[in-house]
């Protein structure tokens, strides 16, 4: 079995005195779509924030492509290829769609390639090209999520982490975003989706991790997880 792209081992992290993650183990393989599901307050967002360097890791390992990332600042983690699309999109107000996308490529200096990637995300999300000069926060919720995902892609990451892809969006919009992610995944970008909507996550991802109170309770193939009685009862309402 090849070494996974991202390997997280007994990761502990939290905010000040409050510990949120109690030894999380996950691994993401290169080029796959994986998901993390769990209820509100389980630690999903904190895990992503720890992976992207926004929350300090108190102990544990965080190996990306064999390199230890724990303790590195956010810009160095992004530079190594982990991009984080935050919950609630967090687009920059007062700036155009285009400027938001260019900020995604802030750490890059290869101008020609940046413009090629801009064309690439416009080809996946044509609506963004149409609205590229509009204030990004005036877009609809779904379009904002497209912009946020595209902004993440603009850093040319090897792993794209998306927090709450479907939150507050119409089912048709979620479907369209999902199709776009599958297309992006085909060019080799690994994607980690964090979702409260377990059904959506399981449809998109091949493998899943179920987080409860700061630890991974279950893991495996999403088709298998979807058949698990505990998950069916707790998360799918079946």
């Amino acid at each position, binding site marked *: 079995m090849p070494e996974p792209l991202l390997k997280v081992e007994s990761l502990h992290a939290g905010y000040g005195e409050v510990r949120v993650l109690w030894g999380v183990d996950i691994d993401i393989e290169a080029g796959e779509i994986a998901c993390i599901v769990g209820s509100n307050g389980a630690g999903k967002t904190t895990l992503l924030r720890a992976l*992207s360097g926004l929350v300090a890791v108190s102990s544990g390992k965080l190996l990306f492509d064999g390199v230890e990332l724990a303790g590195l600042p*956010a*810009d160095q983690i992004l530079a190594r290829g982990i*991009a984080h699309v*935050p919950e609630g999109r*967090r687009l920059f*107000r007062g*700036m155009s769609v285009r400027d938001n996308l260019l*900020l995604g490529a802030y750490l890059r200096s290869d101008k020609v390639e940046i413009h090629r990637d801009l064309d690439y995300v416009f080809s996946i999300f044509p609506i963004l090209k149409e609205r590229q000069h509009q204030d990004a926060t005036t877009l609809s919720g779904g379009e904002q999520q497209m912009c946020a995902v595209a902004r993440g892609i603009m850093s040319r990451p090897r792993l794209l982490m998306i927090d709450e892809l479907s939150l507050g969006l119409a089912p048709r919009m979620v479907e369209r975003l999902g199709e776009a992610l599958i297309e992006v995944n085909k060019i080799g970008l690994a994607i980690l989706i964090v979702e409260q909507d377990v059904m959506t996550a399981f449809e998109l991802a091949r493998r899943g991790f179920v987080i409860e109170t700061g630890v991974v309770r279950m893991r495996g193939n999403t088709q298998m997880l979807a058949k698990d009685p505990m998950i069916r009862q707790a998360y799918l309402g079946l």
Partner: protein
Amino acid sequence: MLYVQMLVNGIMLGALYACLAIGFSLVWGVLNVINMLHGSLLVLGGYLTYTAWHDYGVHPLIALFAVAFALFLLGYAIQRILINRVVDMPVLVTMTLTFALDLILYNFMIVYFTATPVRVTLNLGVIDAGGIFVPVDRLAGMVLALLLTGLLYVVLRRSRIGRAIVAVRMDRSAAMLMGIRVEHIYAITFGIGALMAGATGAVFAMVYPMTTDLDFTFLGKAFIVCIIGGLGSVQGALVGGLVLGLVESIAGQFLGPQYALTAGFALMLVLLVAMPTGLTGVKGFE
């Protein structure tokens, strides 16, 4: 004719006020730091330009750019080494720190430059446009101030570093996710604030006599302009600066020059009560 003259005087003064306030407004808007040092940086810029011109024969325009660059470095270092350590604390802490720095700089300047008024005298003459008198050095000062303001606007809107500054202002943690090093951008922003102060000080020294104890006068103007125009945007500072310039010019004409300052502060008080976000509101650097 008197009204046109007042208008012309007000606009020429207003452009300088806009340029004076913009760095202060930027630092306040992006860092949430009330930079008590701003006025002294203006004075420093003015005196350095004067010294370069008077003692070393440097052309004032060249001196302006050199001084602006030097103050950028000074501002960057102050933020990076000192203010960044306390930037997340309540605003009173950073205000106290910059106030202390202001005292140090002020006293240094009193010793080094003395309190003698100085001026870069260009002797450019006066244009007489059908009874409207326009001193050429003031006109040049206005043009320079507008150019500097325009330049800053373009940098903020069009450059990579400008986008990063606006991003940090809008959403700090999202900016970090873009790979933006916030402490670096803070220092750059403070540096730009100091740069604008230094450049405006240089322009002031070409137009009005400069003395070391003008520091709090300048700081007061920056406050008023920010409150009139709204915080943290280039066009807010422009609007605020021009309004203040006109108000002072008109009040100076009708009530006497000694009331010009009072009129400016009175307007600030009225606006604080009636329109706390200023005439342009807070909408970022558009």
